[in-house]
């Protein structure tokens, strides 16, 4: 009896040990990399941006020079085309059931207290448009006087998002926006705009252009606009061979004389590697694109997920991107750094492996000292997209563990980050069925 008991105890012990060992082996490898761990961050509670019944989505965050946090996002238009004919008491329910309109409004709001409270949303687009969301959603930049510049893209008149137009609007100084105008001179050829204020205070807008449709890979076009909205240059081509469906990234150095841009290239063999382009003449011309990682991702379809770039006070260029790589087991969110202005790049580091078949969307924010904050989407155990977060210390080796910061019932996608000396904010879109909403989470830094 005693022997049997001892045997049972031994068997259970061995099984438990085996279970613990297997569980340890199954843990995320990336979280255990590096010699030390940077501390995780404690985020505050979730907040919502926008009106729940108008399907807010596609947030973009940025700090203004005066320290206020701004957010731009899109919502369903509540114009006459959407209003149901039922009595008011039934409006909410019937609104969800009726065929929605693709028409959206872009809204802007600011927070002077670290995202705790927000100003009333201000409409950016003067007329209702089918504003493209997700990868091609609205972006904003600030003048030195906090003037807001916003760009977005809209499909052509037939509703074709792949033959789109870049729209630009700026604050009028009276609490509203000057009516938006189209920037691309050749109609129905431009998508995925970004906007940045150059150190000389001119506004730089870049986009992916298809005015020459053959060969298929797209071109990179820039346009420079004065602080008061006057067009300083026509749009001009600075690069080619771009993947047709991905967001761009940009960073300035040397007082604007040097401009770095990142994008995804596509070869004739449909290999999509990410590249850095460098201009040393203030964006007039760019050198040959330099691959910062030979991922060898060969895909003939539309992996709409662009790279991000940021620079610290040491001049280091930090880049993050998603790739499927040469096989699904190499898929994930990656990071690299260039310490010599894009001449060479450190071997890529895996931030988070892809947990299932999914295109992931990643973004980053870099502090002056070189701390890099990453946010991306990936699937959880229940196959729902969630937002994940990680920090890389300035030594370039010490990673915080991977933190899941969303608890979406449906899917949480496309995070946006904003960083100041004291605060970090992450916003994303959550969707469940046909409904969407924007979530914001904030954390205090330096604690």
């Amino acid at each position, binding site marked *: 009896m005693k022997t049997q008991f001892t045997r049972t105890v031994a068997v259970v012990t061995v099984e438990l040990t085996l279970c613990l060992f297997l569980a340890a082996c199954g843990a995320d490898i990336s979280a255990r990399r590096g010699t030390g761990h940077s501390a995780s961050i404690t985020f505050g509670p979730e907040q919502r941006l926008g009106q729940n019944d108008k399907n807010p989505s596609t947030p973009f965050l940025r700090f203004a020079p005066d320290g206020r946090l701004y957010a731009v996002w899109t919502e369903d238009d509540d114009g006459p085309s959407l209003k149901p004919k039922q009595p008011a008491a039934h409006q909410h329910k019937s609104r969800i059931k009726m065929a*929605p309109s*693709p028409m959206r409004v872009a809204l802007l709001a600011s927070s002077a207290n670290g995202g705790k409270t927000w100003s009333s949303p201000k409409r950016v687009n003067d007329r209702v448009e089918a504003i493209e969301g997700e990868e091609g959603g609205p972006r904003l930049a600030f003048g030195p006087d906090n003037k807001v510049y916003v760009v977005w893209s809209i499909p052509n008149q037939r509703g074709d998002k792949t033959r789109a137009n870049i729209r630009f609007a700026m604050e009028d100084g009276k609490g509203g926006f000057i009516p938006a105008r189209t920037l691309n001179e050749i109609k129905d050829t431009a998508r995925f705009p970004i906007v940045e204020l150059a150190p000389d205070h001119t506004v730089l807008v870049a986009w992916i252009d298809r005015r020459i449709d053959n060969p298929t890979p797209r071109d990179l076009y820039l346009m420079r606009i004065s602080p008061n909205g006057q067009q300083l240059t026509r749009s001009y081509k600075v690069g080619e061979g771009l993947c047709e469906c991905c967001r761009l990234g940009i960073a300035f150095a040397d007082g604007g004389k040097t401009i770095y841009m990142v994008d995804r290239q596509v070869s004739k063999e449909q290999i999509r590697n990410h590249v850095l382009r460098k201009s040393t003449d203030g964006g007039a011309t760019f050198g040959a694109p330099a691959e910062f990682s030979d991922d060898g991702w060969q*895909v003939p379809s*539309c992996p709409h997920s662009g790279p991000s770039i940021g620079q610290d006070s040491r001049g280091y260029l930090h880049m993050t991107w998603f790739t499927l790589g040469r096989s*699904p087991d190499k898929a994930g969110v990656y990071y690299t750094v260039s310490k010599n202005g894009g001449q060479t790049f450190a071997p890529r580091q895996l931030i988070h492996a892809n947990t299932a*078949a999914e295109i992931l969307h990643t973004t980053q924010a870099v502090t002056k000292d070189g701390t890099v904050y990453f946010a991306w989407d990936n699937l959880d155990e229940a*196959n729902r997209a969630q937002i994940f977060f990680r920090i890389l210390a300035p030594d370039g080796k010490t990673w915080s563990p991977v933190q899941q910061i969303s608890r979406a019932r449906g899917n949480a996608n496309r995070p946006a980050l904003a960083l100041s000396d004291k605060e970090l904010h992450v916003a994303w879109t959550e969707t*469940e069925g046909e409904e969407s909403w924007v979530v914001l989470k904030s954390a205090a830094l330096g604690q």
Partner: protein
Amino acid sequence: MGRVKERSAWPMKTPRLQRTAFRRMSFSGLALFCCVADLIFQPVIAWSQNTPQSRRDSAPAVGAAAFSFDLKSLDGKPVGLQTFHGKPLVMNFFASWCDPCREEIPLINDLASKASKDGYSVLGIAVEDGRAAVTQYVTEANLVFPIALDLNSSVKRIYRIFGPPATFFIDAQGVIRDIVLGPMTPERARDGLKKAGVFR
């Protein structure tokens, strides 16, 4: 105490030969039970493995059964793989924002216009897209085949669509016979239809 006694007393009452025979019987019974259980539960296990949550590690492959799913069409009707059972199916994943999808869509539409005559079906599955954009796209491109909305990306994930377009040619028995990742060509379409049992 009584239960222990009862259990310990039971073998004592069994003669040695009987016990051996019983052991043999119990082993063969166990084996038989396992076989029967296997037969009964295998489809249940296979079905459960076919659910979205448990398909993370299995990729759709030529020669394998297509994964079942339940979606809603643009007009809110239920659409699943079983809707098309008994006929070859061309299942096209697309998005209204996707450039290569727009390039291939006239060809998919052409396949759909001939589907009834040639005895197969075409289903479009819109991924990472909203009802409004898809509705507009269907009107704009004059699509003549049923469209299902994969609003929660569940079907996209089980079929491992790393970016649309992607097309699966499924035979009348629900087995995947060809997969085209990226834009369709007339040659690939003809080939896929043949493999799925059309034009026999």
